[in-house]
């Protein structure tokens, strides 16, 4: 589904991604771990089309199509979804209106009819219960005054509504209490399906108890330096990143 070949990207003339190679097939769940500042969010943002980052070389295809040629919104409509590490607020724009606009933009792209306010309200209420967000959050401004955990659940809510082909989850497990972690993992597991791939960035192997990945990759210094199965995460937890030749003080601390 997603194929990344020798991807280099920089921000403000500083190279962050230094040759990423990664193949993700439909139905797979990949976890990316790695020290702070190693480029995990950068990779996620580059895939989603954030123009703050410049792709200097390499190629990325989604189902054979050149992804890098597409605008951000076109990528989204092709099924790329990014759950942000730090979701931004949009004051005054109700979550409900924002979500409906997004869902209808996707529907329009697929040639489907738009959902009216009442239909959408019903759907949104159901899904908000699924991520344990009170429906009153639908009326509030997008992420406006949401707690850290509520923002993360709101991201999963969006993923569930938009039903992407490739869901990139950037530390969606960070800052969650134990119950919320369960809720979010259940949400992600609900997304798992034969025709959908999930790429999740995490610092915690405990998440991987809930969402069992098919592959685990270690990203350090802008490169994937090691890939393995589920057991790699356990090994990392035990030994830290040091045994891979990376300085320990950079290790996950949040």
């Amino acid at each position, binding site marked *: 589904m997603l194929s990344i070949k020798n991807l280099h990207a920089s921000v403000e003339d500083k190279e962050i991604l230094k040759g990423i190679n990664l193949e993700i097939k439909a139905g797979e769940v990949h976890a990316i771990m790695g020290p702070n500042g190693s480029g995990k969010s950068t990779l996620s943002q580059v895939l989603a089309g954030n123009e*703050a980052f410049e792709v200097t070389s390499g190629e990325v295809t989604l189902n054979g199509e050149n992804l890098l040629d597409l605008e951000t919104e076109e990528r989204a409509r092709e099924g790329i979804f990014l759950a942000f590490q730090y*979701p931004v607020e949009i*004051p*005054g*724009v109700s979550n409900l209106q924002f979500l409906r606009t997004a869902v209808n933009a996707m529907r329009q*792209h697929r040639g489907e009819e738009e959902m009216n306010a009442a239909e959408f309200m019903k759907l949104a209420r159901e899904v908000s219960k699924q991520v344990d967000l009170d429906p009153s959050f639908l009326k509030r*401004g*997008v992420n406006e005054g949401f707690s850290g955990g509520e923002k993360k659940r709101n991201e999963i809510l969006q993923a569930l509504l938009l039903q992407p082909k490739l869901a990139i989850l950037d530390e969606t497990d960070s800052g969650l209490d134990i119950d919320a972690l369960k809720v979010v993992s259940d949400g992600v597991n609900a997304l798992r399906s034969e025709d959908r791939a999930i790429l999740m960035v995490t610092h915690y192997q405990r998440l991987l108890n809930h969402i069992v990945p098919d592959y685990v990759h270690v990203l350090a210094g802008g490169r994937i330096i090691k890939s393995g199965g589920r057991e790699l995460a356990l090994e990392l937890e035990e030994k830290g990143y040091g045994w891979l030749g990376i300085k320990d003080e950079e290790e996950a601390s949040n």
Partner: protein
Amino acid sequence: MATTDQEVNELIKREYEHGFVTDIESDTFEPGLNEDVIARLSGLKKEPEWMLKWRLKAYHRWLEMDEPDWAHVGYPKIDYNAISYYSAPKRKEDMPQSLDEVDPELLKTYEKLGIPLHEREKLAGVAVDAVFDSVSVATTFKEPLAKAGVIFCSISEAIRDYPELVQKYLGTVVPHSDNFFAGLNSAVFSDGTFVYVPKGVRCPMELSTYFRINAANTGQFERTLIIADEGSYVSYLEGCTAPMRDENQLHAAVVELVALDDAQIKYSTVQNWYPGDEEGKGGIFNFVTKRGACQGKNSKISWTQVETGSAVTWKYPSCILKGDNSVGEFYSVALTNNFQQADTGTKMIHLGKNTSSTIISKGISAGRSSNAYRGLVKFQPGAEGARNFTQCDSLLIGDRCGAHTFPYIESKNKSAIVEHEATTSKVSDEQMFLCRQRGIDPEQAVSMIVNGFCKEVFKELPMEFAVEAGKLLEVSLEGSVG
């Protein structure tokens, strides 16, 4: 990032929708202003002697006045003798007696603007007075309103039919000596709307005036006077558009509101005069004096404005809070794009005890425009226990526009309480990226974010117009993202 500032700057470029010219035969005065012109104007309108005297007095005072230059706007000097002070569609009789007698071209114009004047196609529950250039061409729903005792007619009719009311109130809130443009208006005002709501009557429908400038080189000087007698209530809305022309056109209106004991007036404006083109050529100069007097105790005047048009706007809808416990409100959205300039705000003058005022101002600047809020909150010695809350927010789209805030507070009463909040924000790259990442078009994203920013003001508008205002912002913002 997804939508860079540069791209944002490009997202504001749709054609002005109402820019067409109606091909209609008009009687138009030669440009120029002198006593004869005023006498001719007054004569054409079959005005009584007192009215002409009133006009001439204002004219002489105006000749001694200087054009104000303190506003944060710049425009070429206006030659007041190059303007025509009267233009009216030609017609057989003096005034159409019913809608059937209104020129079909005119009816079509209003239809095109989305303002049906035929009562059967009427906007639900809204009575309309349509002012075309210098004259009122039609007023709808006169009968049901008359049944309730509400007078809703053009000011020209009111001068002829209700001289006592007009004489009693005209110029009492905005005297002709108030400022340069008010002086000019007092001398040459051509038409406008008059409303009187009698004691204890809740006006059964929204009243609205729709102003349209059509003729070239013509100034529009309308005069509106609304009187809410004791315990009455009225909600009034005005809308404005003009054709696209390369020359600037002058619009200098005066609006006076009077609320007696326990009366309430809600006055809403959706102003969409032609703003000029992308290079800043043409557009309306909108120099307007709007003021309401809360004369009686427990009275309330509420101004809501959505200003998206005009090349230059100079406008400060104000409240004089004279009655004890009276309330003044000002809710404003002012959007400027391209080379538009707006200097707008309000004055809340607290005279009575326990008077209170609220000011919510939302300024949005895009393109190379300049947007200033100017507000005065004044507490006179008698304003015991008075209070004001002001919230002034600016939103910038792109990085070539400007926002300015000039709040003035003068207090001569120690018990008065003032709260002031101000913020300036930008439509951020991160917000745009979030929207686009969810599949939303950049243009739609900007309009959604801007609408969210204006929400507190839009909720004050009558329902039908809140939707219109939202759409208007969308159109006005087109081209501000690329």
